[in-house]
């Protein structure tokens, strides 16, 4: 069941991403982006990352995409004047994209991930005796919150994330002030001045 769901939403996510690239209309691109991001959120749920999936739905689909749609509405020019990519550029980009995907796929196929995981586990001898908490069934909210506060009951001996959390908090505040300063209303430039 979950395997079928995985393939369904993996195909939906890839299809959404490809239709973002192919659409020339910006509003349709935003709609495809919503499909893609929501499918990725379902993939997170299937992977047992329930809090990350919920955050993805709330912050990305509910926040960032709405912000983008507001941007599209505020900057839309006349419908007759659409910004189109020239076909030559499109073919060139498609060729480069296929080559780029081939490089990434070659790299993915060339690495033995299971052996890497064993090496990683062997490199942490202090934690070998202790059983790591199984996160495959979700319930990650409490361990995640504790990790952000600097306590790691799920992985004894590992460091917490209190300092990055504080840095990100200050960063968000600075970004909010900066965005409000940048986007304040100014006198518009008259075109035939």
């Amino acid at each position, binding site marked *: 069941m*979950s*395997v079928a769901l*995985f393939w369904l939403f993996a195909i939906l*996510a*890839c299809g959404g*991403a490809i239709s*973002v690239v192919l659409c020339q209309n*910006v509003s349709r691109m*935003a709609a495809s*982006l919503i499909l*893609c*991001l929501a499918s*990725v959120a379902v*993939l*997170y749920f*299937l*992977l*047992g*990352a329930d*809090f*990350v999936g919920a955050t993805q739905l709330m*912050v*990305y689909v509910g926040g960032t995409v709405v*912000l*983008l749609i507001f941007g*599209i509405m505020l*900057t839309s*020019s006349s419908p007759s004047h659409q*910004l189109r*990519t020239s076909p030559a*550029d499109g073919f060139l980009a498609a060729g*480069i*994209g296929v080559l*780029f*995907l081939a490089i*990434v*796929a070659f790299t*993915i*196929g060339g690495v033995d*991930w299971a052996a*890497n995981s064993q090496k*990683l*586990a062997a490199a*942490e001898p202090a934690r070998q005796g202790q059983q790591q*908490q199984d*996160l495959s069934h979700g319930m990650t909210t409490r361990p*995640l919150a504790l990790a952000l506060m600097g306590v*790691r009951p*799920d*992985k004894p001996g*590992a460091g917490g994330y209190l300092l990055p959390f504080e840095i990100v908090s200050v*960063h*968000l505040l600075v*970004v909010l002030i*900066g*965005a*409000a300063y*940048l*986007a304040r209303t100014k006198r518009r430039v008259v*075109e035939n001045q």
Partner: protein
Amino acid sequence: MEAVSLNSLLWVGAVLFVCGVICMTTKRNAIGVLIGVELVLNGANLNFVAFSRYSPLALDGQVAAIFVIVLAAAEAAVALAIAMNFYNCHLSIDVDRGDELHG
């Protein structure tokens, strides 16, 4: 989910990443470029969460994913403010018209 291999998840992430890069390079609309950046960040995020599930990384991958989501939201806010300013200056959102610094 045990039957789904790590490689298939990495494949989905790779497709999202490549689509985002193409979107960033080919779109002439500044908002389209922003959408491409979001796609790239999502591809990277999917890899983080996949590795948190299939490797001893465990919770660290999910914490990294949350930080990426927060930073992506901040980036979108600032980039949209810059796009608004660009639109106010040029009365167009075409990135090809931002060539004042062209040598």
